[in-house]
């Protein structure tokens, strides 16, 4: 369930643009999935990932449709509540490490990441703005992201 809760959270952030709402959605989805599993609604265990995804999608769509956040219908079982807290701490730690990693990047590499991930520019557009080729922009974007990933994985694996 731990692996799925990260995925539901990311899906919630992307679809709702609201981290708090996404956190609450993780709880709602896990409760719904556990409830369904208890009732034997999943026939094929190999389809668990697709089942969790489908449940998450339906709950997110419902929430977007009602446009109001409903409190969870019931509280999380203790082990899942604990897991939720661990996820929040991991999320905060990941944010801190990303901040550190971005500080270590060159200004132009940060600019490439900013234009890609925040301003939504394509490599060709970034290339035109920075006087580089599209291929160089792609390579530098991937290299910069790898540096960030390496630092996060190195630090998180130590804890």
């Amino acid at each position, binding site marked *: 369930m731990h692996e*799925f809760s*990260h*995925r539901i959270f*990311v*899906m919630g*952030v*992307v*679809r709702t*643009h609201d*981290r708090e709402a996404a956190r609450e959605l993780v709880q709602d989805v896990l409760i719904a999935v556990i409830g369904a599993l208890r009732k034997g609604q999943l026939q094929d265990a190999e389809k668990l*990932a*697709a089942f*969790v*995804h489908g449940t998450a*999608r339906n709950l997110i769509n419902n929430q977007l449709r009602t446009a109001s956040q409903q409190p969870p219908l019931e509280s999380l079982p203790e082990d899942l509540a604990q897991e939720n807290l661990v996820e929040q701490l991991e999320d905060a730690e*990941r*944010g801190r490490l*990303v*901040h550190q990693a*971005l500080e270590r990047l*060159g*200004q*132009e590499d*940060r*600019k490439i*990441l*900013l*234009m*890609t*991930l*925040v*301003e*939504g*520019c394509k490599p060709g*557009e*970034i290339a*035109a*703005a*920075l*006087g*580089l080729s599209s291929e160089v922009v792609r390579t530098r974007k991937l290299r910069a*992201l790898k540096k*960030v*990933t390496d630092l*996060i994985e190195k630090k998180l694996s130590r804890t």
Partner: protein
Amino acid sequence: MNCKEVEEREILEEYLLDRLTEPDREEFEKHYFECASCFSQLQTRLAVQAELQRQPAIPARARGAGFRLAWAWTPAFVTVALLLAVGVWWYSAQKHTPSQQASSSPPTASPEISVPSTPPTSTAPSLEALARVEPPPYSEIVLRGAEDKGHEAFRTAMQNYSKEDYAKAIPGLQTAVKANPQAASFNFYLGAGYLLTDRTDPAIVYLRKTISLGNPAYSESAHFYLAKAYLKKKDVSAAEEELQKTVQFHGSRETEAEEILRELRK
């Protein structure tokens, strides 16, 4: 969907920017619910995106590009320096004309370059003042018949634009451009939105694109606002070029463009 397709179509970025079609989004989500590698890359990008949104804006021209461009502009700098030297020499020569020499210091044998002890004061407006941007006006166009997704997003975004909430207008304008990349109005107002929120590089991209679309209703204004973007970046030569192109249209921006050109040449 597989990992190769995710990489080739830059699905990770498109997903985070909420630009995938519903079926593609669904497919990608199903994929990353089972693929540890793609999910790890997605998590990193999401964290980087969140962190960059929190950080203050990076200066318009990144250091590396500035260094390369500085070399590219060396001949222009040399020309400006030479012109300045000639100007100072001319000023000095004028100062030492016979009528003035009686009351000033003794004449020198050669036209020496004399630098005034205090810099001359200038009343010319600064580059920052010339780069100041007034938002391009917008009046709503009512379409007959059913609206497509692009026009719907554009209309909603322009409601924020009209309230001078340019940052809030940008996501809707991005959606409009994505739905209809050939619409000059969508590209123009997206460029203007970026310019008005001091995001000069993407502003240049979309204003250039507006020009490339060749819609006469937006070409003159696009050149004018592109000049403003270059002024913000202190790229005077590129700004002058765009202002000259604006003047050639002999349209509503002609006088303003000429005035800025005059100030730049002072």
